[in-house]
């Protein structure tokens, strides 16, 4: 089991640092490539969602990210001090109809729900805490 803990600023360029740190951590933890893609996508969608929607001011805010790996699963926790928002209440995108009616935004949380086996939210001490679990086939240890 391993734990990655990062403190990130509410700025999109932080995605680059986040990406490097995640790749290195998940590689060291032996997480399969397909699972890495899913974990990275879940984290990017949640992180971008916080940056784009959580804050009313342009000031600096700290967003903390914890990734905990266990055999066959990764648990992601993102904690921010933005306005209260439970992402599980985000409206589902419209997935039918002609091309001209399809929205160009609003798929992120829907994708996160699809990729995770558990998706939770709590609000305490004026902070949002989102928890997402990605399960995957863990490679067997060599015998």
């Amino acid at each position: 089991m391993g734990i990655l803990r990062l403190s990130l600023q509410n700025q999109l360029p932080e995605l680059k640092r986040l990406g490097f740190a995640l790749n290195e951590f998940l590689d060291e933890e032996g997480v399969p490539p397909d699972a890495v893609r899913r974990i990275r996508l879940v984290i990017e969608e949640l992180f971008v969602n916080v940056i784009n929607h959580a804050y009313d001011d342009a000031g600096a805010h700290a967003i903390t990210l914890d990734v905990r790996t266990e055999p066959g699963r990764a648990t992601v926790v993102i904690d921010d001090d933005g306005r209260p928002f439970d992402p599980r209440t985000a409206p589902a995108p419209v997935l039918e109809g002609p091309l001209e009616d399809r929205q160009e935004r609003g798929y992120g949380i829907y994708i996160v729900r699809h990729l995770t086996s558990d998706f939770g939210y709590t609000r305490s001490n004026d902070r949002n805490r989102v928890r997402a679990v990605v399960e995957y086939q863990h490679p067997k240890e060599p015998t």
Partner: protein
Amino acid sequence: MPMELIATERGDQVSHVRLRGSLDMAGIREIDTRFYAETSGRDRPAIVDLSELDSITSLGIGMLFGCAKSLQRQGHRMVLLQPRGFVDDVLRRVGVHEVIPFAASLDEALRLARKGSLRI
């Protein structure tokens, strides 16, 4: 892997671009201006080859929808060529395949692109 866009001029009135890497926020920032210029900016049907695309986020999906809609307004169609694995799964999950055709081969993509165009 850095995001790459490779444009191939096919000389047959169909734009053809290949995307390689991860179409996440960083990747989109690298290629979006050129992507629109090489597709909806050319006033002709477009084939977007996704066979080497490793990952895609909701912003990437929005980029594809935006471009396909722009082409449709011009009377043209976008075709997605060979999305694979994880990318194929994410695109189908949000119903992209229902409004932007997927092609398994370049021949099929060309046929679909021409068929959908009102102006070729």
